[in-house]
Each structure stands twice: as structure tokens, then as C-alpha cells.
């Protein structure tokens, strides 16, 4: 049985009980376990939906499973460094956005061929192994010969070797969530290249690193396994495993009336300050070559902004006063190619320089931006 909540919401708002939210709807249902499916494929809306459920739904005597998929996006863990984890210039060219989630763990690539599952419970009932059993048993119920098993790192491995699922989790005040991915038919021509940083060798950081693993799609071993079939099997197995009689409810995470505050949660997840600014302090130490001249670049980045910038440039290529003025321009700015380009353009307009120097500054800027 699938209830469309958007229809139900019309009924709710038409009644006198205008304060009804998704939370009260669950309370009134009186079910100990509920399966939700998100109607959105937007990463920020779905991450906000997770936050909203975690913060606003009473999970002390109720557990929930949320199934969701996203259009192509790279998602990094809460304490990770995106410059270290993925190829940002490539992602910009391909139009693949970056998101930072609130749980820990490593970096993953999502597209429609990936299923995300979030298991919401009270802190007491937090049990990742049991949740992963739901997934492996569901897959085995569909295809008994499938060799899938959870590892002690909470990955799910196919044929003992290929990672098809990774796990991350967040523990809050009284409740917790454990979410994991499942590779069904992800575009494997993109995945390896976006998840390989172009600048990791020049970065020194204490951020949590990802553990790279060889991956495979379930589709590779069985072309008849599609995402919808798998999601239905997981929903069913969830009910079996925990003894629930769960309906499957489709939720629209853009419905502010039903989930007050969710719009702001989605906005907060999209700010530069959250996605890039939450990167733990790191330093960049790189040699860039401009016009056959090797320039040593040293930058300290804190909260995603350049805290300190130093360059070693031969005096005969660019005078040191010009270099100092250039580096001061960058101090305090966002570690971001667009912002840097804008600042340097303004710098070139305000500081008098010969055409020759202007060309050098322009190329120097391109070199600096190449590590962002």
C-alpha cells in the first residue's frame, strides 16, 4: 500500500487542525515502523528531509526507513576536505554539484543508479549490522545465489571483493540515523574520475580521508536487477526483520507546510559556508609553472578561506612588491576559483602595471586557480 502524502496533505490543511505536520501524522498512524520514499531527486532536499525526520519525529518508540535516490552529485562526509576527495574542476565542467552531509564517513558518487537508505532509530536501538542484514537478506531473497555480505567496516561486498555499499551515521541527542548507499546501475565511466582528486598530493590536512575501494554495480552481475525491484525488496525485508507492519509512504520534501522548517534546512546545506567552509584547516604547498618559471605556492586555508598566502617568485620575473600586493589581495578570500578571479581582476584594475606585468599576473592567477 502506498499512500500519496501530497493528497493527504490537502485533507490535513483543509481541516481545522492546521498545526498538523508529518510528525503528528506518524503519531496518529500508531505504527512502530514506517517506510518512506522520497519524491525528490535533489540531494539538498533529501539531506534536509533526513535532518527534519531526525530532529522533529519522535523516534523513541518508532523506527523508520527512508529510501531515496539523487541526480548526479558527489557527497562528502562531515569532516572531509573536498579538494582532497574529488576532482572539483571536472565536476564543475560536468555540472555535478558537491554536497556535504552531516554524518561522518567518506566520499561517494550518487546518480539514479544508486539507492540510498536511511535507518532512523532511537540511540538505544542503533544497530548498523542489523540494518545491513536487511539489505543483504533482501538481495538474497531476490537472487539466492548472490554473494553479498557486510564487512567489519560496514561496507557491503559483492563476491567478497567489490564494494557495492558504504555506510555513514550520525548520533544526536536521543536518536540516531545510519545511512548507506547501494550501487545498482551507477555510471561507472564517471565515478572513478570525479572521485579522484586532482590536487591531493599538494594538500596537507587532518580531515577524515576516504578509503578507496574497487566497486561494481549489481546490474553487472544480474542485468534483471533494477532499482525499483530492489527498493521494494528492501522495504519488505525491513518489515520482516523488525516485525513491523509498515506501509510505504511517498513524501515530498519540498512540502514546507507538512514539514515546517525543512526549506531552511535545505538552504543551510547549500551555503558555501557549509559545503566548503566546514573543511578542516589545511595547507597547500604546490609548485606551479608559469611561462617556464617555477613558482612555489604556500597557502593556509581555514574555514575555506585563505588565511595566509606566500609565493616564491624569481625577482626578475615579478618584483617582490608586486608579489606581496598580489598575495595580500588573496588573504581572507574564499578558496574558490570564481572569487579569486574576481579579486585578481579588481587588483589589475586598481594597481598600475605595465602590459607585460599584467599578462604575468593573469597567468599567475590561472596557475593559482588550478589548485582550487
Amino acid at each position, binding site marked *: 500500500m502506498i499512500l500519496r502524502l501530497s493528497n493527504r496533505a490537502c485533507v490535513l490543511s483543509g481541516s481545522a487542525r492546521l498545526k498538523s505536520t508529518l510528525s503528528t501524522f506518524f503519531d496518529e498512524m500508531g505504527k512502530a515502523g514506517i517506510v518512506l520514499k522520497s519524491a525528490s531527486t535533489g540531494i539538498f532536499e533529501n539531506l534536509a528531509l533526513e535532518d527534519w525526520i531526525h530532529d522533529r519525529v519522535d523516534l523513541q518508540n518508532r523506527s523508520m526507513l527512508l529510501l531515496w535516490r539523487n541526480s548526479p552529485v558527489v557527497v562528502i562526509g562531515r*569532516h572531509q576536505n573536498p579538494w582532497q576527495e574529488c576532482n572539483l574542476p571536472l565536476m564543475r565542467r560536468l555540472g555535478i554539484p558537491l554536497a556535504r552531509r552531516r554524518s*561522518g564517513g567518506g566520499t561517494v558518487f550518487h546518480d539514479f543508479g544508486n539507492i540510498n537508505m536511511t535507518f532512523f532509530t532511537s540511540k538505544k536501538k*542503533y544497530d548498523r549490522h542489523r540494518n545491513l542484514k536487511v539489505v543483504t537478506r533482501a538481495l538474497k531473497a531476490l537472487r539466492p545465489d548472490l554473494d553479498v555480505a557486510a564487512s567489519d567496516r560496514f561496507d557491503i561486498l559483492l563476491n567478497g571483493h567489490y564494494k557495492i555499499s558504504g555506510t555513514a551515521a*550520525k548520533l544526536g541527542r536521543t536518536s540516531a540515523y545510519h545511512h548507506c548507499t547501494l550501487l545498482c546501475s551507477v555510471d561507472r565511466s564517471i565515478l572513478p574520475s570525479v572521485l579522484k582528486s586532482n590536487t591531493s598530493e599538494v594538500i596537507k590536512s587532518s580531515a*577524515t580521508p576516504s578509503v578507496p575501494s574497487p566497486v561494481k554495480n549489481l546490474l553487472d552481475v544480474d542485468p534483471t536487477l533494477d532499482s525499483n525491484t530492489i527498493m521494494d525488496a528492501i522495504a519488505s525485508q525491513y518489515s520482516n526483520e523488525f516485525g513491523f507492519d509498515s506501509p510505504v509512504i511517498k513524501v515530498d520534501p519540498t512540502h514546507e507546510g507538512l514539514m515546517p522548517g525543512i526549506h531552511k534546512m535545505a538552504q543551510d546545506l547549500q551555503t558555501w559556508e557549509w559545503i566548503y567552509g566546514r573543511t*578542516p584547516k589545511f595547507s597547500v604547498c604546490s609548485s606551479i609553472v608559469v611561462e617556464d618559471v617555477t613558482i612555489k605556492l604556500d597557502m593556509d586555508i581555514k574555514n575555506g578561506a585563505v588565511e595566509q598566502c606566500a609565493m616564491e617568485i624569481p625577482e626578475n620575473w615579478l618584483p617582490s612588491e608586486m608579489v606581496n600586493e598580489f598575495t595580500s589581495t588573496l588573504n581572507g578570500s574564499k578558496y574558490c576559483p570564481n572569487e579569486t578571479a574576481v579579486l585578481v581582476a579588481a587588483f589589475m584594475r586598481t594597481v598600475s602595471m605595465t602590459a607585460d606585468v599584467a599578462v604575468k599576473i593573469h597567468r599567475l592567477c590561472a596557475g593559482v586557480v588550478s589548485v582550487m
Partner: protein
Amino acid sequence: MDVISIFHEDIVLLSVTMVMNHRRNARTPARLLARTCYKRALSTTTRFCAALKFTDKHEWVRVDSGVATVGISNFAQEALGDVVYCGLPEVGTKLAQSDEFGALESVKAASELYSPLTGEVTDVNDALADNPGLVNKSCYKDGWLIKMTVYIPEELDGLMEEAAYERYIKSIED
């Protein structure tokens, strides 16, 4: 010269300058405060002694000379497992009691940290950036997380003494 700034919701900012003698005599912080115009009586034992107090979220607080040091308890660090990263706030961040102020990441999960008191962050343990394992190895000493001012001293009365906290842990474990 030591300067103690006391923030209190009923009074305008009061600065108390104190000359510290080698032996603490009549000019102890508690005595000086008693002379200032507070509307409420201050108990000297809970505010300025260095005993540990605990929250039900397994954070500990130790107040010394008006500054509270905050960390997580042994029960919490054992439950978390090896801490791999400490996400802590900036100095100057203002926190209300129960505000989320950061997260500790371990193999278990990213566990949110909640402020035991209302106040302003004055110091953050930088040693944890390179050595997050200090939270496991020395949770009451070298693994401290933040230091903060105490805006509302009465909040300390609502926290558990060590004996009460031990009883609380036993009740959860059962």
C-alpha cells in the same frame, strides 16, 4: 593581575579585578563577588571549585576561576570507539545550554556534542587536531574539548555530581 569578568543576566557587565597573592587570602574570587551587588546569593562551593559535574549526555564540566572546561566522560569515549576527528567551534562562539557545538567522529558515527552550559567559547583544544585519540586516552585531562565562560552559574546546579552520574550510568546499562 588577574581579571575576572562575570556575566549575569540580571546585572550589567561587571569586571572584577583581583590581585592574586601567593596564598589565597581574603581576596578570593568568592569573597570579592560577595561584596559586589548581585541580586542573587552565590554559593561558593558549586561555582568555583574544581569538582567534575556531568550532563545526561555524558559531557563533564569543571569550573575553575570562572572558566568551564568541557569534555566527554569515560563512558562516552568507550561507547564512541576510537575518535578520528574532533569538529570543534571557533573561539568566540556563543552557546546556549544544549546547543550543538560540534561533533566527534569515530568508527561508530559522527556524534554531536551539546553544550552543558550557556557561555562563550574562550579556548579550543588544538592538540586534538593532530591527535584526536587524546579524547579516548585522557578524556578527563589532555582530551578536554573546549573552555567557555559561565554566563548562568545556576545551570551548574542542574548537573550531576560524580556519584549521581555513576548511578545514572548504571541505570542506563541495565
